């Protein structure tokens, strides 16, 4: 090979690849709205993204698969956990992970910040990214099912939407903090105590690892009724 050929290989290789790459970049921007809800990218989502950066969440949690591998991926966290679980974990990680082997720092995230964070994660979850990560597809499907039922959600949907980030019910939700079938059997709270428990678990049972839940009193009441009905169901079965 002569020096001239070598030089030609350099320029041909570099320029052809650069041109293709720049063209694809242009096209990426053109097509982006097909995959990303750019129209839903509002002030609150941007505010949530700033919170995400401010606390450097990304060096522990991956998002879109990028970042630190020290904690769960956040791409579809909104579907996996739901808004209230996100808010309660982010504001009170020291309680949520009191008894587990890996801790998330208490970052002093305020209520407003946590709400914006949830909006940001909701927007991120809606990115159409070819069903990645694989392990969260089931949560995406379950969420979509609940959405389809949004007209008349039954109390089970409401309970799992709010609490499914940590609790399970059979196949639904996450098996992190106990199954509602077992919990409902175990507890002896009345309806009012249960509502109070949901809003401030420590005030009912000291030292419990569940962080306060950020849901309205009406929703809490519906969920309390649901848990008590589970208990009644089981007793009838017996």
């Amino acid at each position, binding site marked *: 090979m002569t020096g001239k050929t*070598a030089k030609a290989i350099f320029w041909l290789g570099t320029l052809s690849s650069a041109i293709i790459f720049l063209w694809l970049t242009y096209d*990426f921007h053109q097509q982006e709205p097909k995959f990303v809800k750019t129209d839903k990218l509002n002030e609150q989502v941007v505010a949530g993204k700033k919170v995400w950066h401010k606390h450097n*969440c990304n060096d522990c949690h991956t998002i879109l698969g990028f970042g630190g591998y020290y904690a769960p991926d956040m791409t579809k966290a909104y579907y996996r956990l739901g808004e209230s679980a996100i808010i309660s974990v982010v504001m009170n990680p020291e309680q949520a992970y009191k008894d587990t*082997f890996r801790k998330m720092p208490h970052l002093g995230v305020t209520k407003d910040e946590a709400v914006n964070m949830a909006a940001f994660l909701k927007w991120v979850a809606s990115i159409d990214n070819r069903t990645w990560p694989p392990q969260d597809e089931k949560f995406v499907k379950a969420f979509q099912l609940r959405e389809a039922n949004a007209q008349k959600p039954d109390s089970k949907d409401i309970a799992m939407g709010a609490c499914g980030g940590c609790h399970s019910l059979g196949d639904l939700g996450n098996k992190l903090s106990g199954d509602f079938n077992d919990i409902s059997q175990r507890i002896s709270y009345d309806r009012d105590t249960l509502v109070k428990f949901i809003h401030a678990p420590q005030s009912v049972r000291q030292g419990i690892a569940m962080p306060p839940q950020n849901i309205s009193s009406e929703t809490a009441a519906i969920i309390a009724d649901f848990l008590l009905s589970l208990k009644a169901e089981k007793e009838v079965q017996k």
Partner: protein
Amino acid sequence: MIRYESQKVARYYLGLALILFCLQVAMGLWLAVNYAFTLPQGLVDVFSFATSRAIHTNTLVAWMLLGFMGGSYFILPIECKRELFSVKIAYLQLLIFAGTAVAAVVGFLFGWTQGRPLLEIPVPLDFLIVVAALLFVFNVAMTIILTKERSVLQWMLLAGVTFLAVLYLFGMPFFKDLNQDYYYWWWVIHLWVEGAWELITAAIAAFIIIEVTGVERKVVEKWLYVETGLFLFTGLVGTGHHYYWLGSPNYWLWWGGIFSALEPLPVALMVLDTWMHIKGRKNPIVNPLLWTYIMGLALFHFLGAGVFGFIHTLPPINYYTHGSQITASHGHLAFFGAYALLNLVVFYFAMPQLKGIEKFDDRLGVWGFWTMVTAMIFIGLIFGVAGILQTYLERILDLGYRTAQLNMMFWFKAVLFFGVIFLIGVLMTVYHLFTLKKAAD
């Protein structure tokens, strides 16, 4: 034994790089402790994994850039047969760069961060880095422009450092849209390590090979053209291997997959030409350790970037391995194999000359080399095993993140163990470099 007075500036660059290297690895050990043991909430609250990771990766990039810059300042006078354009600029630039690095690390400790992985340095400090980079590129460019003897090597180096500096700019703006954010994040990360840095590495390695082996310049420069041409051909469009799962058109699976699968080709060529030049050497082997490092660089570059990059670059595989410890496995092997070793080649080439030593006593250095290389191979393999396990437990058996991590604990402890060995190797090497002595005949 240096041939030009201005080469001396390199000394401070290399010294600082070596110190940051130690800090980087120490911080890596601390990350492994975070993985392997449960730390108290109070500690996690004030000094978290996130902060430690930011320090680990930023000191990594900082010492490597210092090595590139110091290395360039060392070889340019020889290559251009003249003094550097300005020694003052070189010192000023070092001062700005080092000051910014210290400010950044202290800032991280107090939560001052841009909050994007690998690009944590806050924007105001980014501007200082840009100033330092501009001074550097200017100094290199002027030295090259003013020389009477042009060479391919000179402008390849200049192209590499200019490309590197330009890409840094893409990491500075705030993106409202996470999808675009990561699209351009990779312009910094991927186009650095699989583009600009490869150019710089190829140019510096070519220079040192010519100097050390004495083979004909024409031949080496031909290889240099072909290798860098292939690097950029595969590496530019190859950026697409990071665009599979961030929300993008389907064609990225093809463009990214095929081009990135070709990326090992130029690295393989580098192994071939290094080996051929060493075999066809015209000079005697004065310092065998330097030759070991040169061959080690070629082989480990191929292992970490070529082999371990290739195995997870195709979309059907990457779907399962993406965002797992498999990436950590590749990241460690590739950074060490390509850029840590390149820098060490530069150090072992330059430091003896700066100290006026022709043949140095290399016993401790040999131990350092083999300790680091062995430990890093284990670290890479262990991260790989942990990653395969994670993928299997979390994505096939569907056990959830926490259960998967719990079952990976043994491997995290193993990484910590080999991390300690690696640090010992680093300390031996750094100590050896700082205290180089003439070999007793």
